[in-house]
């Protein structure tokens, strides 16, 4: 097949995906600008947010240009690098503690990024390769166990940080990839049973850090911690609810600007959006997410092989779970965890990771016809 350069380019570009991702990034930047406007170094933070976007274009381009099918051959290296990323915050001189968890790395005193964010993408690629090797059918317990072993390793390392929220993202990614990979229904039933038992064991024997237990349980019992997690939740709900249909206007949210919402530019960015742009603003956001996820699903469907499809599904799972968990926690549907809202939350690590994920999707898309 002979193709012109422009045809090859158009083949490589998935316009809807890029359009929706760009729209989300712009939308997010507007809300971050509003959320940080009243902060001490508001404009500086906005610049950092934009720098994060620009920096994120590099891994996006690299992932796009790289033929994902060749990643399979790097499995060992990726596993090692992924493990290193998850362990790195624990390495003396490299890790740094923030917000009760050691989930950052720094060099020469400069805080660099959250390795667990980048680890999500490596995890997707690695586990996708494992699942794809089962050729679309996972009906042997050993196969399922193999995947679970990867999950358990990653989950365990993240819990040690401890960062329960990010750990749950890995769980969600794994399960959604397993669906696409053809795991039998009864294995899901077993996994669910194991999860329930594990949860009971963990809560009964207080294996979790107290703050984690509080965070998990406060959305069931808000009085558990009225000034901590319960306070955050109550204030977030007030912010979002008080936004009403049309919102109070950018920078006009009283809950946001008077510091009632903690971490309003990061984990609770949706509370700011809900308060200032109202239900209409929230509908626009959810609409953009729907469009983004549908575009990603189209890419998964178009993939020429199962590996590419499962990578795409992994990205969808990551985004969908983070959307559900993040927005869900701000409205009291989900426990409070520290997971950023894709493309919206302030934070370069997450932005770079999400743009890298876009790159992975584009890599799958641009190679749908084979080379």
């Amino acid at each position, binding site marked *: 097949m002979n193709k012109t350069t422009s045809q090859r380019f158009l083949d490589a570009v998935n316009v809807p995906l890029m359009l929706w991702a760009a729209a989300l990034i712009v939308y997010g930047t507007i809300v971050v600008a509003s959320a940080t406007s009243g902060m001490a170094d508001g404009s500086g933070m906005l610049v950092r947010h934009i720098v994060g976007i620009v920096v994120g274009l590099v891994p996006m381009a690299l992932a796009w240009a790289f033929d994902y099918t060749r990643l399979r051959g790097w499995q060992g290296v990726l596993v090692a690098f992924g493990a290193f990323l998850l362990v790195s915050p624990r390495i003396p001189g490299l890790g740094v503690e923030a917000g009760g968890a050691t989930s950052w790395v720094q060099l020469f005193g400069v805080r660099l990024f959250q390795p667990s964010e980048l680890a999500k993408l490596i995890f997707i690629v690695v586990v996708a390769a494992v699942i794809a090797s089962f050729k679309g059918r996972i009906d042997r317990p050993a196969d399922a166990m193999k995947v679970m072993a990867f999950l358990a390793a990653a989950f365990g390392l993240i819990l040690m940080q401890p960062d329960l929220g990010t750990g749950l993202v890995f769980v969600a990614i794994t399960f959604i990839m397993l669906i696409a990979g053809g795991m039998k229904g009864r294995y899901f039933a077993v996994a669910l049973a194991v999860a329930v038992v594990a949860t009971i064991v963990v809560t009964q024997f207080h294996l979790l850090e107290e703050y984690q237990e509080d965070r998990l349980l406060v959305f069931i019992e808000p009085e558990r911690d009225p000034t901590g997690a319960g306070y955050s939740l109550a204030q977030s709900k007030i912010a979002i*609810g008080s*936004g009403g249909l049309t919102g109070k206007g950018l920078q006009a949210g009283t809950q946001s600007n008077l510091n009632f919402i903690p971490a309003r530019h990061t984990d609770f960015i949706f509370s700011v959006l809900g308060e200032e742009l109202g239900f209409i603003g929230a509908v626009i956001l*959810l609409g953009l997410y729907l469009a983004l996820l549908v575009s990603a699903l189209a890419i998964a469907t178009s993939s020429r092989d199962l590996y590419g499809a499962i990578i795409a599904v992994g990205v969808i799972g990551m985004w969908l779970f983070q959307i559900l968990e993040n927005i869900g926690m701000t409205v009291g*549907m989900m426990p409070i965890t520290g997971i950023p809202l894709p493309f919206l939350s302030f934070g370069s690590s997450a932005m770079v990771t999400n743009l890298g994920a876009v790159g992975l999707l584009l890599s799958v898309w641009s190679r749908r016809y084979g080379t």
Partner: protein
Amino acid sequence: MSTYRQELRGRFATLGIVIVVVLTALLVRLWTMQVLNGESYAAKAENNRVREISLEAPRGRIFDRNGVPIVNNRSALAVSVDPTHEDVRSLRLRARNDDTADDPTRRELDELFGEFGGMLGVSATDIFERVNDVNQEALRPRVVAVDAPKDVVAQLLERKTDFPWVHVEEIAVREYPFGSLAAHVVGYAGSISEREFEDSDEYAGYELGDIVGKAGAERQFEGVLRGDKGWRRIEVNASGRPQGIVDEQAPRPGNDISLTIDIELQRVVEEQMSDAMAEARRQGYGSAKAGAAVVLDVTTGEVLALASAPTYDPSVFLGGISKANWQTLTAKESEYPLNDRAIMAAYPPASTFKVITAIAGVNAGITTESQTYTCTGRWTAMGQQWPKSCWKRTGHGTVSSRSGMKYSCDIVYYEIGYEFYKRKLEELQAQARAFGLGTVTGIDLPGEVSGRVPDAAWKKEFNANYPEYQLWLPGDTVNMSIGQGDMLTTPLQMATVYAGIANEGIIMKPHVLKDVLDSEGGVARSAEPEVLRRTGVSQDVLAMITRSLVDVTRDGTAQAAFAGLSAQVAGKTGTAEVMGKDDYAWFCAYAPAQEPKYAVVVVLEQAGGGGAVAAPAARNILASLLGEPVKTVRARDDSR
């Protein structure tokens, strides 16, 4: 391979459904919160961001009849302690629990408040007492010192870290340019106590700890003086730090009022009372420490002066009275200075009551102005076994009704009283009641008592448990005819009796409020003269009484006291016998006798004879009213 593709498509479709379900679930939740319940969340957000603080309304000022301020407002620096601060709260909680062994020790209190108290000159225990005061809104800072020296305040503010529980604020306090003068008329203000707050509807709309009038005009005219609180809604951030004012409603200051009191006359009255008591003590009446005086305008009922001794300084109540001061003010040894004896004390009126006996006697046809009686000093008309004496044991000889008044001869009134007894009509009581005795005058001051006009029914009921004392005896009416026995009147009541005689038998309702002023200083509302009662006594009889009362000051029992006064004064001395106490001195008068304008009553507890100390005081009060020189009168006089 195609089935595999189909299977995969099925899985993607499932994934698509999951995506839609998740996003729809969030959408529904948001719809419920933002659209359906948006308003209630908006209210919560508003509640979060806005704090309302109330703005105290300046209390109305109180002026005398000539516009001289008796009670003013000024701002003062108040140093208070935050009872909710952790260090303070823990001690309070320990003092509150039932376990007294756990109460904070003196040492602990000194540790916390010692230095702070030292700077203000207040003991640590006193501070703790204030802080622990339950009569305050729980969160309100407790004022421990008003008018602290500026340098001390500055130090306290600088050392915020040492005294994190200290607040300094400017508060409006009452100012009394005349000190204790007219204290019983103006009264004092203080915070509402928990009991007052809970037990009555009077303080609906107030908050615990609000400043309210507690006595006198401050209390009587609370509704006028109080004004309306304002409020300010401030925006606060999550740490409660104010960000700005949302909106505010300025307080409406209370109305100023002017009283009928003439503060200069009041000064004369109080000086005369205290001089008279000093004189009584000099004459050997060592317990002469208390009394009351009233000056009325007989034609309008205006109270020109009203005094009670001992008095108090209302400024001790500023910022809350200390326990020690309160104990002093309520102690028996202090003679209860907070009581306004002019309206709250009921004394036997003694000979000042004889005017009513005389009027009743003439009205009943028992006596006439010229009817004569023989006074031997001893009276046995009720039988040899029930002898009674005239105060003048040597007797007055032959006396008429008229000269009986002049010399205050008891025998004359025993005779009249005994006649009343024999008629069994209780006409003397009726006459007393016609002059308003036995009921309150209704003066616009709180706490007035009604006194007592004894009669057969009263005595039966009063002695319900002592059957042998229930019968009304001849001696009861006879004693009553000279204002003794069970007869009790307040100084104010006797003032209205004499004012009524002076005002052609019409008693005007006594009142202290002259005008309620509006915010521009104009008159919003004036107290109009009001007829309290028409006694129905004929002008001839009243003229007869006036003649006999003028005799009293001209050449009768008050002759010495009134020497040198050119105006004609109608007056009557009284010397009340009180069981176990020295005699109480009375003098009731009105002047000028021919065209009366003023009625004056002076009562001095345990000060001896009315002619000796009460009459000279009244004389000088009248002299001051009528523009004549005030002079020291030393009337060593046994006359009653």
